[in-house]
């Protein structure tokens, strides 16, 4: 079940990234292509088999996991910028790119690296599961490391949330509002990941579901906006009467 979810998320994301190649070549919103590309790589790195393969190439000390965290940070940072710009959420934009956003990013990144190098990380293992089992000390460090890795995406998604809720209730085109609802759902899911340390171990599957729900919601939400644009440019701008809402 989890395997299916992982691979289908990877496929969805990869397909969308591939579909954006032509417009990226034309120079339309390249950053959107980068977002989808980064997300695809991130999902690839969170699946056991490809993770182990890539990490072995990087020396087998789970550097791929650290890389994965920063890829996620980059993707979510670009998502934050694009979405706040698009939806005209200026204060949210400042919270991401302004001093506050930079401080948050810096502190979390430093914490992430310090925690990583404090661990004994030999032996490739997706999600650092094997690393965590090595010792009591490693277990605690992995928990903190994971929390730091989720903190930045959670920060961005909480910043985006009010603007998304506003967009859902606005008079924008329906597809855009559905997309905003998806982005908001993804944001809530990412924020929920902050609670993972408090989740009992037997609910491990729920963590997977929430993680992939978040990724899928973001990817589909962004793809939907793109689809809405394609649709609106295809149907010739119909003459609107002035009573139409």
């Amino acid at each position, binding site marked *: 079940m989890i395997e299916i979810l992982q691979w289908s998320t990877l496929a969805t994301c990869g397909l969308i990234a591939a579909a954006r190649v032509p417009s990226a070549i034309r120079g*339309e*919103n390249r950053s*959107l292509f980068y977002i989808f590309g980064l997300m695809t790589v991130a999902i690839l790195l969170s699946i056991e088999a490809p993770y182990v393969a890539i990490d072995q190439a990087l020396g087998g000390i789970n550097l791929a996991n650290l890389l994965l965290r920063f890829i996620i940070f980059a993707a979510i940072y670009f998502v934050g910028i*694009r*979405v706040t*710009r*698009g*939806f*005209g959420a200026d204060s949210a934009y400042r919270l991401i790119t302004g001093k506050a956003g930079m401080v948050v990013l810096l502190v979390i990144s430093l914490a992430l690296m310090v925690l990583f190098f404090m661990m004994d990380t030999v032996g490739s293992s997706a999600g650092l599961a094997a690393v965590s089992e090595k010792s009591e000390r490693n277990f605690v460090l992995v928990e903190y490391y994971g929390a730091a890795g989720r903190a930045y995406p959670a920060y961005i998604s909480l910043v985006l949330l009010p603007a998304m809720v506003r967009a859902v209730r*606005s*008079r*924008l*085109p329906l597809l*855009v509002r559905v997309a905003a609802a998806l982005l908001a759902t993804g944001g809530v899911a990412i924020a929920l990941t902050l609670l993972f340390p408090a989740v009992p171990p037997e609910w491990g599957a729920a963590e997977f579901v929430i993680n992939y729900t978040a990724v899928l919601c973001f990817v589909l939400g*962004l793809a939907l*906006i*793109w689809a*809405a*644009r*394609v649709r*609106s440019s295809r149907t010739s701008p119909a003459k*609107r*009467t*002035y*009573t*139409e*809402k």
Partner: protein
Amino acid sequence: MTLPAKAFQRWLQGIAPDASTADVCRISGIKRTTLAQQLVRGKVSVSTVVSISRAYNVNPLSALATFEAYQDLAGPQVPPTRCELVSQVSTPDILRAVLARPAMEPAGSGTASPPLSAAPHATSVKNWVDAIDDGEVRHRVSAATGVAPQNYSAQLTANRLSPELALATALAAGVGPAGGLVATGLITEEEAGWPPGARQAALDSLSDGDLTALAGDRLQALGKVLRRQEQDQAQTEKIWENLG
């Protein structure tokens, strides 16, 4: 609200005793599947009755009056008030009327303005309700029908009003019951018994000041709608630009 299929069948028996459903559909131009579906569900729409009565040369108003929910339409026809008549003149027609007044353009008068375009117009529903609203009508309609005020307003903004709300509004405002049905375009002025030329006469009877003020109000409302649309459009473009 729709009409019960049983009552509809009884009424149809009365006006077209021998006609099959297929005949009725062919003559009245209603899609057969549409009518069949309405009959199966037991809910026949008001516009179905209007179309059929027109096809059989029955006044739609008196046809509707035979149904219980619309029995207030029966009885002597109440002539429309001047406000109602003017509310059913479209904004372009009002602006033309302003320009034709010597007070506005002393030199350019003399050109006869073209006949008014038929009701309903682009904002006819909202203008009609505004014309008969004493400030409390919306509350009374809401209380009488149980429709939430925000849903009622949403219909007005979209220039729509369901037939039963149109009737309830007219009753709540104490004007002729058919006015709302004209404003929503369900029936014509003629079918509602409005005298021909009544709208033109009402328009002509407005003083220069009243007419100009009315035109101003209409333009202001139109400006608001257009500006809001432009804002929505600009926002959408911005989203396309950044995320499309």
